[in-house]
């Protein structure tokens, strides 16, 4: 596969095959420098004319040693880092990670924190699905739909920036709570954005759902059965699009999901169209949940009153020696997490996002492992691509919503 252009440099990958099934098959390399592969995925495809015979998917172009780096920082200092796993919904990473640490420490978060985390998880899911649907529509040429959707997403990003100080990488979760409480007027603006979401999502339905071009590209393309999806470890909208209602929010309820009224939308046959529609319906369910949560938010503190993980209030740090020492120890040594290991998972927008943490006691993790849905999906995505047209790789890959940050870590 060495091309003359790159002949001076070693090829970072070794393709699984260098010829196709037939003598006149062509082997092409797609990506990683291609907008539809997010700049991080390389697809080696053997083609028979325009039909894809076989593909070999390579990831790792965004590998940055996340897990290695984690072993060298305190439990709290990892939070900005986990934000950057799935950078479309950083808050869900924060909360899943914090829950794993809290389980090890046996910390129970306050009711207000629990409801706020649930609300923000659903808000993040909305932003993530908007990104995915918008990007996959744009890749099919639907620029208007893309602009409508990212406009709403931008309202959400700006709105989250009011809360957290950042548009994408929030660093908002804390072990035992949250960075800060809601600013004044935040919920009123949230209600406005949800109304605008509904107005524009109705336009998307009108533009796209029964659009002949869209249906021709999406229906019966990238089909996968429930049994095969489970075999390949698929979770989230991909698994649900096959008709299997597996959703951790219902199956193993965490945070406040057990108290909420919501449905788990499923597809019919697990093709691109079903994945699109599952995400559209899930966004509606998220909005439904956010509205319930806005009325359920209890008053009270957002951080647990536990000196092992929560920083003392600033005025106490400046006036009392105990609080000063407490602050110093938490910052310099990190929270003292008892020895043990734990696996905690949340239903991230793409599927099961799990953190496997090992502690030997003390302020620094011994090991942090992320079970990222995108990486597992890349292990089975060849089943969605093989047998279809070369041009179908783009919408199918888009409907999987691979996020380089969590795939390559």
């Amino acid at each position, binding site marked *: 596969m060495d091309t003359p252009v790159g002949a001076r*440099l*070693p*090829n*970072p*990958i*070794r393709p*699984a095959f260098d010829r196709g099934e037939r003598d006149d098959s062509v082997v092409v390399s797609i990506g990683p420098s291609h907008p539809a592969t997010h700049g991080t995925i390389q697809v080696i495809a053997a083609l028979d004319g325009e039909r894809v015979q076989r593909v070999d998917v*390579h*990831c*790792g172009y965004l*590998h940055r*040693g996340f*897990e*290695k*780096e984690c*072993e*060298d920082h305190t439990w709290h200092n990892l939070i900005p880092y986990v934000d950057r796993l799935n950078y479309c919904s950083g808050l869900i990473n924060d909360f899943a990670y914090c829950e794993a640490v809290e*389980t*090890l420490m046996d910390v129970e978060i306050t009711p207000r924190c629990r409801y706020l985390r649930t609300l923000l998880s659903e808000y993040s899911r909305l932003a993530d699905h908007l990104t995915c649907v918008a990007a996959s529509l744009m890749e099919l040429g639907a620029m208007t739909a893309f602009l409508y959707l990212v406009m709403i997403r931008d309202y959400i990003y700006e709105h989250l920036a009011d809360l957290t100080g950042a548009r994408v990488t929030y660093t908002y979760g804390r072990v035992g709570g949250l960075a800060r409480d809601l600013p004044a007027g935040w919920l009123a603006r949230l209600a406005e954005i949800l109304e605008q979401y509904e107005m524009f999502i109705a336009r998307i339905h009108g533009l796209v759902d029964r659009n002949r071009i869209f249906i021709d590209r999406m229906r019966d393309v990238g089909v996968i059965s429930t049994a*095969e999806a*489970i*075999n*390949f*470890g698929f*979770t989230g909208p991909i698994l649900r699009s096959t008709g*299997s209602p*597996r959703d951790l929010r219902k*199956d*193993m309820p965490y945070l406040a999901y057990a108290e909420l009224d919501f449905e788990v939308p499923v597809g019919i046959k697990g093709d691109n169209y079903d994945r699109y529609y599952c995400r559209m319906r899930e966004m509606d369910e998220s909005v439904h949940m956010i509205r319930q949560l806005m009325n359920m938010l209890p008053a009270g503190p957002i951080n647990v009153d536990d000196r092992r993980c929560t920083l003392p209030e600033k005025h106490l740090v400046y006036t009392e020696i105990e609080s000063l020492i407490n602050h110093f120890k938490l910052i310099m040594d990190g929270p003292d997490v008892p020895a*043990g*290991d*734990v*696996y905690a*998972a949340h239903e991230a927008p793409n599927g*099961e996002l*799990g953190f*496997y943490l*090992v502690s030997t006691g003390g302020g620094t993790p*011994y*090991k942090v*492992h992320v*079970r990222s849905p995108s*990486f*597992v999906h*890349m*292990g*089975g995505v060849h089943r969605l691509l093989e047998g279809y047209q070369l041009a179908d790789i783009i919408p199918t890959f888009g409907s999987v919503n691979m996020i380089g940050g969590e795939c*390559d*870590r």
Partner: protein
Amino acid sequence: MSTPIRARILQEVVPADGEGRVAHGMPEITVPAAALLELVRRLKDEFQFDMFLDVTAVDWPQRTPRFDVVYHFYSTTHLLRLRLKTRVPVAEPVVDSLVSLYGSAGFMERECHDMYGIVFRGNADLRPILLYEGFVGHPLRKDYGKTQEQPLVPYRT
């Protein structure tokens, strides 16, 4: 619904030379590497653990055998997760691959091989996945320095 199945698993599946416990609500079984494949097959066939979620390793340089290989499974029937652990020595870090049982094993075992050098016997495709061809060593082992670099393209000076 899930409590009886948890107890049943720990009663019926744990071999004589293994051990079982419940940690933070999740059943966890430790088995010798030789018994792993057979145990997983039983878990899949008799207890409907149909989804292979994750595999990773933990490096304990001071301990013999040095590595824990840690598996997580999920049952979409019982809505239950299960953790499986086995220990392998650094001289022969070999376990049986699960590719014959689960499609998801392919990529995840490749990653674990990349990062820890665990060899999954029966997985024919252990090419680098997150690392690149020609990378020397296994970066998540504790004796691989964090700042140790192997640039594929020389740095411009």
